[in-house]
């Protein structure tokens, strides 16, 4: 028996892992997720905003990081729409609009009206210089939205002109755009900045959070699941986090079995020799 475990066919591991990862997709386990302070802070900040406030969501992640960050975009979009807060989508990385469209579609039954409840200004090249320019004059920086409609024709944009008209910016960032928002908007105009990140980028953002330059942040898939729990609407991230848990559990169990088998065999061999 022990020997069998030792020399187990690798394919058994693959198969069990595959089942463990798939199972929660069909039947979510609903494992409890404890809410981290950084996620709670971001949620609280948005929750205390009045209806009609303006939040800019800067969609700055690559398709590779989408698995971790996109669920965050959806969850935050849901929260903002439910609070009747106006959303300005934009992006400093080229994939922005495709994610925006998808997030609005998946946000559910709030039926936001384009131009009144939200706008999509799309991707704008120029990196840090763009953030600096839009802080001074959004209309001059973007001129049109992602479809080419003049910003002047979008009703909600009439009152949104500079960084001072923005109540919160959230950088959905898999690269380094949050540094520009902190450096150009938060530092110079005092506009609050939040972050929605993939896990890799969390460690180097903590100094901003500790210094109060970032009001709150979400950490990868886990952060998305926490936010889904906060708004009471478990979605893709919660389900996928269940898969992460069951996947880890399976791998750890295999490692434990492997060790038990290894030591069991070693002891029985020793006994034989004795």
């Amino acid at each position, binding site marked *: 028996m022990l020997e069998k475990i030792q020399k187990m066919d690798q394919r058994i*591991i*693959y198969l069990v892992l595959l089942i463990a990862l798939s199972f929660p997709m069909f039947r979510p386990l609903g494992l409890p997720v404890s809410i981290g302070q950084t996620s709670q802070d971001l949620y609280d900040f948005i929750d205390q905003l009045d209806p009609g406030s303006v939040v800019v969501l800067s969609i700055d992640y690559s*398709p590779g990081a989408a698995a971790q960050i996109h669920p965050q975009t959806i969850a935050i979009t849901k929260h903002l729409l439910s609070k009747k807060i106006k959303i300005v989508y934009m992006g400093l990385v080229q994939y922005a609009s495709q994610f925006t469209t998808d997030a609005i579609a998946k946000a559910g039954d709030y039926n936001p009206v384009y131009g009144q409840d939200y706008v999509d200004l799309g991707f704008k090249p120029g990196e840090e210089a763009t953030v600096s320019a839009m802080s001074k004059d959004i209309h001059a920086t973007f001129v049109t939205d992602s479809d080419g409609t003049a910003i002047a024709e979008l009703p909600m944009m009439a009152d949104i002109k500079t960084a001072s008209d923005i109540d919160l910016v959230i950088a959905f960032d898999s690269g380094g755009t949050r540094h520009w928002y902190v450096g150009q908007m938060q530092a110079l105009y005092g506009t609050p900045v939040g972050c929605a990140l993939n896990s890799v980028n969390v460690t180097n953002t903590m100094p901003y959070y500790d210094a109060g330059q970032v009001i709150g942040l979400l950490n990868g898939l886990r952060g998305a699941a926490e936010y889904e729990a906060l708004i009471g609407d478990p979605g893709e991230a919660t389900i996928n986090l269940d898969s992460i848990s069951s996947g880890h*559990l399976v791998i750890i169990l295999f490692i434990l079995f492997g060790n038990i088998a290894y030591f069991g065999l070693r002891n029985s061999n020793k006994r034989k020799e004795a």
Partner: protein
Amino acid sequence: MRFAQAITLVFALILLMQFFLEVPAIETAGGHLTSWNIVIAAFAMGLAAFNLIRIHLKRVQLKRGNWISSAILLIVLVVQTFVGLYFGDNSAQYKVFFDGIISPLGATMYAMLAFWIASAAFRAFKARTLDATILLCVGIIVMLGNAPIGEIIWSQFPALRSWLMTVPAMAAVRALYIGAAIGGIAVGVRVLLGIERGHLGGGE
């Protein structure tokens, strides 16, 4: 051989100076070299394609091994290259190859690491030696610190994980960075001064 060696050294020195100094003439020269490199690499791609085609054509001709796969490879290579050159690499026609082959298959290969990492962990994480025991314990703690299920078992796993990542792991990673810099520079000196010249057809 001498002349080739001189080319290597001079080109490297220009780019070294471009990095450290701000001299307009060197800036321009460095810019030229960078764009030359792209062109030379592109010519090498022709060589690579020739190598690929030769090996698979031979297989198809001799009907050796899985020559059918080789034949398919040649067809895809020719068709996609033609579409890319004729319609352009931003065209809708070309996008089919990207969305249908390159990006999903890349994602799949990447995802299969989940399998490989699981079986590698099963084999390697056994408390055979001191080294392997450390690997095993730290590896499991970090896994439990990442997955929500770990927190259910013991609430301090995430904190322990983060200490392991920011103290011992960071120390080792930094040291490897520093060591790699020193080692890389030593390789650079050997190559630039022609102590190592296997690539130029020189022996020991």
